[in-house]
């Protein structure tokens, strides 16, 4: 049963990265676009993501609940030592979530819209940035349970070059996912070309920031290369990711909306796999060389069993209705909606 729980944990992080990532990315693209394109992004994304928007951040909540019920020690260690970026991410989530709703449901359209938009786009970039920092802190061996001064316990645990570059990389990936997604949502040739251009820019940005991640890892003496290439799974995952990226690049302007989405999703999944597989089941590496492992830190059997049953039971209800939701709106997208947008 423990493996069921771990699978759900991984799946919810994965889905949050993909779906939530595309969602954040929409704001990031809006941030870097100007004028008419900015409005286009906004309206297209609202139409595409609106119905599943609420469901998106549920993946994050599920991951958190799994952590605190099943692996409380991992949850509390992170809560203590990475408190500050977690808080920053939460503030980002609050700002973004509320700004999204405010701008779509405010009955009057006036200058307030500009304020909501500004909050929305900035928090769309800040939130994944801190998400990346938090993810980086789990593997950078900077969390020091013995530290007795404030800086090394609560600041250096996450604030370092590696964390920052991973943060930026995460932002680029989100933008990339969103750009690929939007290509399939716009209808005119001109719009498609515009978003294809953005998608290409995002690929380049992700590449550059990815290179910086490796550089920073090297400087911080984090054996990232060994982890990724030290095991055949990592090798295959990275090879698959690279091939799909090449295929993606070549098919971007060939009007294959579904294919490029699958390729992009596949690519991100491979990166996540490569990043997590090598030190599975250890998910938090600590400064003293020890690590928190999903196997050793798991709660008692009875807790894990009931958690697993709750998750399985939940998915019986959730998955079919979620698919039906996506399917319905995919099919009926062009029917006139009475909502304002």
């Amino acid at each position, binding site marked *: 049963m423990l493996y069921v729980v771990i699978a759900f944990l991984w799946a919810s992080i994965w889905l949050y990265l993909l779906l939530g990532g595309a969602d954040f990315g929409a704001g990031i693209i809006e941030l870097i676009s100007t004028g008419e394109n900015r409005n286009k992004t906004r309206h297209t994304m609202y139409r595409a993501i*609106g*119905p*599943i928007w*609420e*469901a998106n*951040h*549920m993946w*994050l*909540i599920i991951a*958190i*609940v799994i952590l*605190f*019920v*099943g692996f*409380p020690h991992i*949850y*509390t260690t*992170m*809560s*203590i030592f990475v408190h500050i970026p*977690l*808080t920053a991410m*939460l*503030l980002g989530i*609050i700002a973004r*979530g*509320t700004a*999204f*709703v*405010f701008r*779509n*449901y*405010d*009955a*009057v*359209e006036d200058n307030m819209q500009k304020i909501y938009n500004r909050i929305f786009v900035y928090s769309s970039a800040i939130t994944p940035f801190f998400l990346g920092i938090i993810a980086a802190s789990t593997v950078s061996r900077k969390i020091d349970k013995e530290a007795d001064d*404030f800086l090394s*316990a*609560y600041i250096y645990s996450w604030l370092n070059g590696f964390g920052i570059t991973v943060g930026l990389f995460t932002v680029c990936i989100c933008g990339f996912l969103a750009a690929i997604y939007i290509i399939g949502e716009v209808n005119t040739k001109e719009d498609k070309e515009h978003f294809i251009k953005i998608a290409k820019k995002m690929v380049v940005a992700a590449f550059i920031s990815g290179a910086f991640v490796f550089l920073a890892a090297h400087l911080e003496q984090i054996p990232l290369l060994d982890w990724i290439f030290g095991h055949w799974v990592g090798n295959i995952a990275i090879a698959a990711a690279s091939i799909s990226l090449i295929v993606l690049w070549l098919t971007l302007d060939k009007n294959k909306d579904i294919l490029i989405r699958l390729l992009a999703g596949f690519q991100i999944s491979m990166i996540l796999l490569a990043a997590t597989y090598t030190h599975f089941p250890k998910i938090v590496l600590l400064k003293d060389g020890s690590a928190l492992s999903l196997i050793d830190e798991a*709660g*008692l059997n*009875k*807790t894990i069993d*009931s*958690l697993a049953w*709750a998750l399985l*039971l*939940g998915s019986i*209800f*959730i998955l079919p*209705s*979620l698919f039906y*939701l996506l399917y*319905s*709106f995919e099919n*009926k997208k062009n*029917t006139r*909606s*009475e*909502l304002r947008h």
Partner: protein
Amino acid sequence: MDDFLAARSQMALSLGFHIIFACIGMVMPFFMAVAHYKWLRTGQQVYKNVTKAWSKGVAIFFATGAVSGTVLSFELGLLWPTFMEHAGPIFGMPFSLEGTAFFIEAIALGFFLYGWDKFNPWFHWFTGVVVGISGLASGILVVAANAWMNSPAGFDYIDGQYLHIDPIEAMFNDAWFSQALHMTLAAFVATGFAVAGVHALMVLKGRNILFHQKAFRIAAIFGTVAAVLQPLSGDISAKDVAKRQPAKLAAMEAHFHTEKSAPLIIGGIVNEEEAQVNYALKIPGLLSWMAHGDSQKAVTGLNQIPKEDHPPVAITHYSFQVMVGLGMLMMLLAFIYFIALLKKKTWLSGKWLYKLFVIAIPMGFIAIEAGWMVTEIGRQPWIIHGVMRTVDAVTPMPGIAYSFYIFTAVYISLSLIVMFLLYRQIKMVSKIYDVHDDELTIKHA
């Protein structure tokens, strides 16, 4: 501000903020379902307009509730890591089930909000009902987690170890039923009165009378029925507290000395140093009766409880008084409204009844906040009653005060924006929904 106090205040602030949105998210879908049902049955455009106007409000509240809830699930660990480390695996069951309930709620809301004219009307109506049911279910589940903190169950606490964990038994702890019932009713009372009051105000202002009257009626009926049941369920809660948390009961009642035929104390100023209440009205025997169903029986006073286990008395007592007082007022208003509905239809056309409802707008929510202060502050100094002290649970990280200031600023600005949006939403009703001609379709804003 000291860090421990800051952590407690931040938790209280976040929960106090979340509960308002949670209540609205749990209850409004039922109001909408009724209006929606009436529209589907009668075809009167005004009911469709009411449903739609409400659904926009709900979308605002839902999202705010969702983000504040997300914050809470992190805050439990950010502020109380020691607590979560031990409690997580025990009281986690309701949270994992709640995840499912939330998810279903979010999916159903997606169908409901974006599904107008896209689906079979009854399927669309049904998705709205699902939003309500799953909202209620999630509310009941979280309260089960809170009830566990008041009435720990499902484990053995031996030498500081938490052994023989049984998550199911923990979920169905002794306090679960009374708290869940009381909270569910409270959500209906508070939302019902607040929504009814806002529509009453618009009726008084003479705007879109028909629209606001229909909306008022739906909300008022839900709110008043629940308001009559609320004190009954409160009585169940009080008896329950008397059994499992005598210190909390004593603090609620400012009952300093154990006595037989204990009096109920109403009003007055609590003097904790001298262990007495001055200038209060005392009704002999009533407390004994409330706590044990027997006006002669002795009620444990704070003098029988070790000093280090005393909760803060004054604030618990005042909060309790506020809750009960408002509960009584709302019950009274409910009876007046029933008389108007059943016997004196003429009252319904008078202005005074609407005015009373306008006055009652904030009452339910104030009572909810007060009620939670009773429950949570009355539990102090324990975070898990009798097992873990709140001081021992707090995060070791210094500087929580700053985090508290930031969150306070954020929550205050959010509340202001939500109120501002709601005000605009209500103001636009007359522009968006032209109710003079029932055949007119909806104009876009």
